[in-house]
């Protein structure tokens, strides 16, 4: 997911100093880009009683996606140094993690479909659930995600869906279908925006036509393209980042939006998941096979799953977290103000999980270019 979006609400995360101490050298096979399921690779033997103070951890994450005080917290609680490095998009994280050389990164935050791709490339360490007791805090639904059933190599950090964010006072009747944004009523023409990142650019048309968000069919994608091109003249712009502000100013009255990005705390702004259904996106935490600090990495993930730490994400980024104990302690007023936070896991699972399409992902790239280039 291309998201530099957290910065909207949050100051830059502090970068703490860290150093690399090698403790256990394990699982350092060369990155094999051909698909080789991690399950067949050797599983590292981890010591549950390892002295974490002899390890250190480097994590790569989106700016503002974890609490600023995290390194200090980790140091005082778990006794190891945490270094936080930043990436602004999944693509940048992938470039970092797949460059071939030892990246020094132990834990990465990436979206589910990217975790899946990293795992297929044999770069991820299978999780050792016995070292992450806080996994018990997750909703049962959080173990049923299509890119990684049973959370064997990834732990979900946040999840959400995509829908229509609109001005209740300016669009009547309220939108209920993706077709409302693809073919808006006269008063909304030139006042709608759709996203520009390829999978989400295609989403409204894909769902309106009743296809899967993970379609690879050329025939279906040709129909999707037709629908998107027909919608283009009615669009104000393609926009991934400023649609919330456009709604507030009234420049736009209806936009395709990620749930956490729809400013529903504003008067008159509402969010709806269209009746044809939508996607389910998940941002996850994964441990790199090349990590030499795997015990610390597991302890880190366990710490994040602590209700208070995980609840920070829901309260501050306003994304839902798949952690029941954490959602339970989110302030009731905040939930009341930000309606997307009220969606239940069952509602979310109505959405179709986005998975990596391998080489077929270039079809979406081409589709996006074709739509953007059309005058």
């Amino acid at each position, binding site marked *: 997911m291309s998201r530099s979006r957290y910065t909207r609400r949050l100051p830059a995360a502090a970068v703490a100093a860290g150093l690399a101490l090698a403790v256990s050298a394990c699982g350092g096979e060369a990155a094999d*880009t051909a698909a080789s399921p991690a399950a067949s690779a050797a599983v590292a033997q981890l010591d549950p009683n390892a002295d974490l103070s002899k390890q250190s951890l480097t994590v790569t994450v989106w700016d503002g996606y974890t609490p600023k005080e995290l390194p200090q917290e980790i140091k005082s609680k778990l006794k190891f140094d945490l270094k936080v490095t930043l990436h602004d998009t999944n693509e*940048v994280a992938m470039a970092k993690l797949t460059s071939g050389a030892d990246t020094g990164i132990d834990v990465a935050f990436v979206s589910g479909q990217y975790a899946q*791709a990293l795992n297929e*490339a044999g770069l991820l360490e299978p999780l050792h659930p016995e070292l992450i007791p806080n996994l018990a805090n997750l909703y049962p639904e959080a173990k049923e995600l299509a890119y990684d059933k049973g959370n064997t190599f990834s732990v979900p950090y946040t999840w959400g869906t995509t829908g229509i964010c609109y001005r209740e006072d300016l669009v009547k009747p309220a939108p209920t279908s993706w077709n409302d944004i693809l073919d808006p009523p006269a008063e909304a023409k030139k006042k709608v925006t759709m996203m520009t990142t390829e999978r989400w650019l295609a989403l409204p048309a894909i769902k309106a036509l009743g296809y899967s968000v993970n379609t690879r069919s050329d025939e279906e994608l040709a129909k999707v393209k037709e629908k998107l091109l027909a919608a283009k003249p009615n669009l*104000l712009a393609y926009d991934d980042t400023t649609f919330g502000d456009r709604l507030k100013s009234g420049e736009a009255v209806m936009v395709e939006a990620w749930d956490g990005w729809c400013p529903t705390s504003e008067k008159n702004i509402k969010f709806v998941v269209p009746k044809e259904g939508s996607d389910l996106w998940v941002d996850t935490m994964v441990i790199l096979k090349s990590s030499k600090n795997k015990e610390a990495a597991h302890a880190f993930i366990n710490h994040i799953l602590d209700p208070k730490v995980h609840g920070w994400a829901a309260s501050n980024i306003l994304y839902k977290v798949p952690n029941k104990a954490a959602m339970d302690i989110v302030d009731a007023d905040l939930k009341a103000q930000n309606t997307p936070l009220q969606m239940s896991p069952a509602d979310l699972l109505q959405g179709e999980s986005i998975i990596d399409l391998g080489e077929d992902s*270039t079809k979406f790239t*081409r589709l996006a270019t074709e739509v*953007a280039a059309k*005058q």
Partner: protein
Amino acid sequence: MTRSTRSAVVSGAAAKTRSRRSRASARLVFLGPGLAYLVAFLLIPLALLLSYTVFRRGRFGGVVYEVTGENFTRLLDPLYLDVVLGSLKLATIATVIALLAGYPTAYLIARLPRRWKTVALVAIVLPFWTNFLVRVYAWIVLLSGPGLLNGALGKIGLGPYELLYGQGAIVTGLVYSYLPLMVLPLYAAIEKLDPQLREASANLGASPVRTFFSVTLPLTRSGVVTGCLFVFVPSFGNFIVPELLGGGRSIMVGNLIRDQFLKARDWPFGSTLALALLAVLIVLLLLQAWSARRA
């Protein structure tokens, strides 16, 4: 005496060699940092870029070292060719408008009294003191639906017009951004022009229009060519203006290249597109050099 003369000659020759050597080392000292910079940050990246163009895309970005020609055949795909041609068109329109607006400006500045010349030139350069992105965003504030211009027009009963998010807005942004780069070389060329030449032309009975087209314009051609190049080059490869003022509704070749690296994770094709852009620019620079030599 002969001996001493000979020794003087010998020592003179030795001194000459010594001075040649010290001149060579002086050259190294002065040119060295610049050369090292060029090698490290221009030649090596350029060589990498060139080499990527013949390889295949890695699944997660990067390259797979299998030689292929498909990146070049893809260049001929109408989809990408249209984007390149579209960018050429927009950059050309922006350049022509900048020339038409820039020439009279430069001409007038060149004829100002010296003190006002400095003021005018500083005023031309002033926008560069603000961040480029901020200046482009300012146009959004000006042109958007509920923006300042539509607000003002609304007061006199006009509009609102749809000014933003189209090719017109892109051209406006490009002209605005690079106009100073047109004015400055034009000013330099016009300023150097001997006013007596114009007077002579007038004395010989030429109309002001004839003087302009037969004397002033030909003599300032180098400024025209340089200015056009300075506007055309950054316009052609621009991706910020089409993204912000075009609203993502039209793309230029710069966006295409950016997307290949940051979204499509297709470095080889991105490199090939960048190479194509470079080829166009090299041709333009050669044309400029040729025109400068003729002048």
